[in-house]
């Protein structure tokens, strides 16, 4: 009995000793919560430089993976404990709710001062801004600061191209050429094309490029408004592109269930000749196989399309400033310094990303330069977005076409049915 009492006393003492240590008030001017674990060293170096220069103490705290980070942000927002700088990692609709709740500062005036906004790739800033009369009722202005930019293009393995008798310096420009190249690779027992099509957003990103090319911005908005149906011949055409790849066995085995990490591994180890992936892939492939001999080309165009081809991309990572923080201005000043040419150049080299500051992208490696050039042609800003239920059915229908579960016509009809259902629901709610 005595032993048990002593044990209970000892552990209780341990427990209560932890009680006595209150939450430590950190001696910090600007706290940054982020999820980019692989950039922590570079961020800390910049924070140290900034302290030396200004005496303002900035601390970068990592919370990863991104799901945990998002939970932390939403919990902290509810408790009104957000740090000076953060990112809700949410879509535009959710960002709008953070802004409307007063958690995110409108930094338009600061962006206009000293032409800060002019240093960024226009597209990156567009995605962090809200236009007049947007559907979420957010006051028009700029709300986020881009840290880097990214876009999604097609990587190709030069050695596998050569092995198939293709000139690695000549890349397909049109869809027809792309299919012909892929067929030639296939004829030489090389799996032509891979991507993380198991992840809905990636297959959606690929399809959206052709949506922009066939419909243009106005056409997309009309589709969202329900004026153009998903059964439109152009949508059937997009579904048919995937069917064509499937019918000719040009897609990697199991591509519909493949996550992007597996697709990246497959491309890095020379299993696949071409891969649809983002600019972050440069960093990934270098890490997995530094000897990989690869290049990159734009998505092949459809000659019959009437609009320019656009790519998925824009701002890669971004930061938002907490409007309720007493150190709000210090946070904005830090971000201004953080996104200046010198700091962006350092970040770009340290992390193999495309800097958000366009002036810092002059000495990028050749492949990242191609990505940087494509930023101007990434998807434009839309004042409204499609219902997530419709996007979900659209992406899963694309997957269904690849596995032969649906014809392009049936897939288009299913998406349109979902669209009609959502519009009906909206009407009923209104």
């Amino acid at each position: 009995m005595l032993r048990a009492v002593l044990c209970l006393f000892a552990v209780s003492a341990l427990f209560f000793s932890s009680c006595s240590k209150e939450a430590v008030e950190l001696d910090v001017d600007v706290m940054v919560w982020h999820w980019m674990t692989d950039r922590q060293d570079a961020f800390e170096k910049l924070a140290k430089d900034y302290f030396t220069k200004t005496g303002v103490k900035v601390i970068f705290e990592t919370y990863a993976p991104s799901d945990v980070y998002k939970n932390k942000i939403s919990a902290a927002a509810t408790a009104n404990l957000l740090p000076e700088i953060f990112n809700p990692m949410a879509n535009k609709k959710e960002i709008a709710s953070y802004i409307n709740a007063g958690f995110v500062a409108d930094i338009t005036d600061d962006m206009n001062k000293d032409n800060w906004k002019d240093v960024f790739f226009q597209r990156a800033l567009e995605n962090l801004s809200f236009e007049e009369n947007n559907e979420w009722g957010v006051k028009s202005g700029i709300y986020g600061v881009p840290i880097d930019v990214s876009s999604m293009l097609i990587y190709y393995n030069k050695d596998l191209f050569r092995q198939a008798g293709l000139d690695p310096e000549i890349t397909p420009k049109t869809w027809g050429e792309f299919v012909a190249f892929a067929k030639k690779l296939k004829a030489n027992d090389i799996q032509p094309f891979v991507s993380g099509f198991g992840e809905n957003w990636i297959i959606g990103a690929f399809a959206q490029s052709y949506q922009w090319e066939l419909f243009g911005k106005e056409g997309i908005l009309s589709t969202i408004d329900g004026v153009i149906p998903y059964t439109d011949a152009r949508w059937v055409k997009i579904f048919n592109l995937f069917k064509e790849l499937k019918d000719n066995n040009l897609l990697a085995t199991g591509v519909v269930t493949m996550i992007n990490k597996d697709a990246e591994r497959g491309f890095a180890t020379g299993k696949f000749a071409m891969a649809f992936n983002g600019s972050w892939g440069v960093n990934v492939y270098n890490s997995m196989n530094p000897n990989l001999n690869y290049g990159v080309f734009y998505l092949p165009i459809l000659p019959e399309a009437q609009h320019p081809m656009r790519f998925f991309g824009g701002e890669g990572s971004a930061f938002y400033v907490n409007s309720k923080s007493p150190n709000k201005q210090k946070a904005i000043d830090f971000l201004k310094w953080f996104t200046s040419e010198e700091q962006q150049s350092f970040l770009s080299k340290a992390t193999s990303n495309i800097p958000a500051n366009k002036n810092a992208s002059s000495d990028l490696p050749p492949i990242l330069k191609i990505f940087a050039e494509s930023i101007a042609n990434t998807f434009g800003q839309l004042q409204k977005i499609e219902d997530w239920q419709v996007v979900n059915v659209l992406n899963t229908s694309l997957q269904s076409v690849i596995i032969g579960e649906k014809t392009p016509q049936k897939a288009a009809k299913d998406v349109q049915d979902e669209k009609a259902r959502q519009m009906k629901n909206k009407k009923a709610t209104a």
Partner: protein
Amino acid sequence: MDFPKLKRSISATITHFILIIVSLSCVFPVFWMVSSSLKTQEEVFSKMSLLPSTWNWSNYVTAFVKADFGQYFLNSVFYTVVGVFFVIFISTLAAYAFARLEFFGKSFFFYLLIATLLIPIPGVFVPLFLLLKNLSLLDTRTGLLLCYISNGLAFAIFLLKGFFDELPKEVEEAALIDGCSRFGIYYRIALPLAKPAIATLVIMNALTIWNEFLLALVVLQDKAKMPIQRGLMVFQGTFVTDYPLLMAGLTIATIPIVIVYLYMQKHIIKGIAAGALKG
């Protein structure tokens, strides 16, 4: 020919074969983890060999230093020891009360407690965060410990109540006649007989708390209070994961809990043997 003997021998061979396959499937991921921890990043992706071509023991030193394991290790030991102790201490008392005492709303409170098992942790992040904030327990070890303890209680009480229900009442009645108090019965009779269940709970809760990561990240902010799993985070980049260092880190983080498991396994067997006599 001795057919029964042959039948037994074939049956034993098949049983052993299946057990070997199952054992291999359990051991292989651990083997793969240790093997990958000694490879280079390039080798992990390009060569599917079981053993590394060069054994990079330095990965362990790099992982230990880079992940600040020294700092996080003691935190995890603290959370695990204190957390498990209080889960066992509170749950044995509560389970015994639910099994043996009569009080108003006993069944209601018991099922209410069990119902909390259905709530996933990520689903309570926001209310938990608010509650801890209101109690001024955010970013404190106490706050995290309370979460760990409350998280482990429902299942522990459920398991132990079932165990106490099975204990013969006659033994307790005899103790009462001999002048033993209600607490004395709990401490001297029920608790020793519940050893196998307690040993199982110690292992389960120790594993859960040692491997827990989500709650710690949400509740804590100060790195100095973070558990060992936080150290592993540094190897998982947004797009690139350093697999050799991650595997080395995982191996380091796994060793203490494997030792606890092996130690407690012996107690479970002892407990089961003791439990067999309880009737």
